[in-house]
């Protein structure tokens, strides 16, 4: 009694068939009373199901999960050396770009921690496309560092690492992660490195991030949240961060 084409007809009605299969299904529909009834039911069901209850997450549940995830990321924020990159880049080690894109899409919507990654990437990109790369242009540590005193809440390290290939070119004030940030700008060959610093308010930070091709390394030091963002080679960024950390520890 049941038409052996009914599942194919259903797939057609659900928009699951390609053009050639659709033509076949349409031809069949014209001559099969049973499938015509199925089509009518399908239309009815669509209208009926529009009235079914859709259970959305309550604000309480959203907040509860957000808090739980923040608890998770605190552990992630300070992993053993060498693990941090794997966590954030994870899929990058062997899987295709889709997995990476999906992974980032997932993480970037997470509360708190992921926001800082996207904030930094955006601030970095803004600095590259606009005129706003530098507010104070100087390769002199003694010019850049005092400038921040008048333009920023924090006094970031602003040492020149020219001998190591990282040239101090200036500084600017920016806004990141809901806070005023001081940004020290370096050049390494053709690449720009933005070193962001803002007051540590006890928030957890991811230890690294990758967005739109820009890598970032984040850490806490001397009551500051620091983040180096650039498209230089990963090894060079690590090198740069090591230099900054060393200079910071002398402050």
């Amino acid at each position, binding site marked *: 009694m049941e038409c052996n084409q009914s599942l194919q007809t259903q797939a057609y009605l659900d928009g699951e068939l390609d053009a050639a299969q659709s033509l076949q299904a349409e031809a069949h529909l014209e001559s099969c009373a049973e499938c015509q009834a199925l089509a009518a*039911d399908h239309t009815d069901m669509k209208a009926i199901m529009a009235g079914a209850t859709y259970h959305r997450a*309550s604000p309480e549940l959203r907040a509860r999960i957000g808090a739980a995830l923040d608890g998770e990321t605190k552990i992630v924020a300070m992993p053993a050396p060498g693990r941090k990159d794997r966590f954030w880049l*994870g899929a990058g080690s062997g899987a295709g770009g889709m997995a990476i894109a999906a992974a980032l899409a997932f993480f970037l919507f997470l509360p708190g921690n992921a926001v800082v990654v996207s904030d930094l990437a955006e601030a970095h990109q803004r600095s590259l496309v606009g005129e706003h790369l530098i507010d104070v242009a100087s390769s002199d540590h003694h010019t850049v560092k005092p400038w921040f005193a008048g333009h920023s809440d924090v006094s970031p390290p602003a040492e020149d690492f020219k001998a190591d290939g990282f040239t101090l070119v200036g500084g600017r004030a920016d806004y990141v992660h809901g806070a005023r940030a001081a940004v020290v700008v370096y050049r390494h060959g053709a690449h720009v490195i933005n070193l962001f610093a803002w007051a540590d308010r006890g928030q957890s930070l991811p230890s690294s991030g990758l967005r739109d091709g820009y890598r970032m390394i984040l850490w806490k030091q001397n009551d500051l949240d620091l983040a180096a963002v650039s498209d230089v080679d990963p090894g060079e960024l690590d090198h740069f961060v090591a230099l900054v950390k060393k200079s910071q520890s002398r402050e």
Partner: protein
Amino acid sequence: MPHLDAATNLARWLTKGGAEADDIVQDAMLRAYRSFDGFRGEAVKPWLMTILRNCHRDMLEQKKRHAAAPLDDENQPPVAAEGPNPEGTAIQSGDNRLLDKAIAALPVEFREVVILRELEEMSYRDIATATGTPIGTVMSRLARGRALLKAELTGGAHGV
């Protein structure tokens, strides 16, 4: 958080509006977060739905272990229509209590494909991924689920 509403919706329909739905959702989001390293799929939503179903299954097994008498999901009363979740925000137009009741009365394997297709508008392929069943099974369950639902709404009969 992407797909949190979708996860919540499926959890509530799987548990028929049970209070444990929120715990399942939280469990699933945490598991997703932790296991993201190993994720190699293309689409996040079906992957998250798979995790959510596993969390639901684990919750049922835990319940079974704790309960003196085995508790079968299908023996739970259909309570979705009673709206026992005051904190949940539901979109409802007109008097759809009967409809919700009819959906809740569907056996779980049909209910979930109907929900994923009709409310989440997922493709057959994504539903197959989410439920760990072949596409052919998704198609036949969807057909049967729709037919059962129609029968439930028109005559109140359980068989078709």
